[in-house]
């Protein structure tokens, strides 16, 4: 009978954990001038290797101050985009925070107990993250999406 219920979950709508502008302010103290990395063909290929597809825009914005860079990135979990803020300093992740969560399942990835696992991680030479987060049952796609975004932020930081 559970088969009959496979598609019938309730959807509560997007949950804004923190506005992107507030995330940048709290991470950098202010919103500095926007910068962007316009991906070359080679960089696009590398991004595709991380995400399994192109990023939604060819140029990706970031904000930088006092040696820190903030990336506001989006990736689809199952069907909806997860807006995530990533702070990178000295090629290592300082903070990962889910800012807007739109999926009906997998919201557990927004908990700090999960996102704190990314702290201090860096990018290995093979493009993988130095320490993978634990999976969360029922939130596999969201866990994968956040891991991809962490890798993407580290990659972009290395391309500035």
């Amino acid at each position, binding site marked *: *009978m559970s088969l009959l219920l*496979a598609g019938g979950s309730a959807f509560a709508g997007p949950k804004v954990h923190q506005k992107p502008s507030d995330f940048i302010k709290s991470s950098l103290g202010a919103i500095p001038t*926007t910068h962007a990395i316009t991906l070359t063909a080679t960089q696009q290929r590398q991004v595709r290797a991380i995400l399994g597809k192109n990023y*939604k825009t*060819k140029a990706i914005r970031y904000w930088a101050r006092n040696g820190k860079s903030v990336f506001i990135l989006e990736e689809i979990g*199952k069907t909806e985009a997860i807006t995530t803020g990533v702070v990178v300093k000295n090629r290592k992740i300082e903070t990962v925070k889910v800012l807007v969560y739109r999926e009906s399942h997998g919201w557990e990835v927004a908990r700090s107990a999960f996102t704190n696992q990314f702290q201090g991680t860096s990018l290995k030479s093979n493009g993988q993250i130095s320490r993978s987060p634990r999976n969360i049952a029922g939130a596999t796609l969201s866990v994968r999406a956040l891991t991809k975004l962490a890798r993407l932020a580290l990659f972009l930081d290395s391309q500035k």
Partner: protein
Amino acid sequence: MSHQPTKLRRHIARKWHRWLGLVAAVPILWLAISGIMLNHAQRLGLNDRMVTSGWILQHYNQLPEGEPYAFEVGDRLITGWGNELFLDEESIPLEGELVGAVAHKGRLLIATPDKIGVFDGADELLLELDNLSLPGTPVQALEAVDDKLHLKIADQTFVLSEDFFSADQVSAELVAIEPRELSPEEKDSLTEAIRTRRGMPLWRVITDAHSGRLFGWPGWVVTDLSAVFLIILTLLGLRLFPKRKS
């Protein structure tokens, strides 16, 4: 003495089990197979594959609400319909009310109150500008004046820099250009494009076919009946399970 009624009950149960099983076999098989597929949607790539069959897409009737309106930029038509935006007849990854569209140095900029999408010559989204990069929101108008990009935000006019990331306020007042209505032919053509060209993820189609909703009320009635039949078949099966006394 009590063997006759028991034998009769078993006979009736077997008869119902056989015929209900026959009637419900195909829908139950479909429910089981589609249920397994949905449980392994990621592994089977159902999230990435798109269904483009016009027959199936017509069931979804994805037409936006309200009347479409458009800005003409050269020979391109940028249409806003409901919350959706279209470049010629292709949906673009930008949502909201269409407030302006201009061509500028080989790029096409399309503005909604919350975002400006910058598209390159291949119609790919190059950049999204929002309140993190613009002097504010909502954007009320976007126009190219004297080869410069002018923005109207909170009744004030700004000139966007060449990299789009800074803006200087100017005293000139920007009068918003009004969009035009689509002609009946243009609307019919866009309607057909939306109904038939927009793909639907395969997992969504299978989910809706699994629940029966894809086929309207007859679909969910058949699904519900199949579920009821499955319950009855289980109970009848349990009733028939004990060995017959010789």
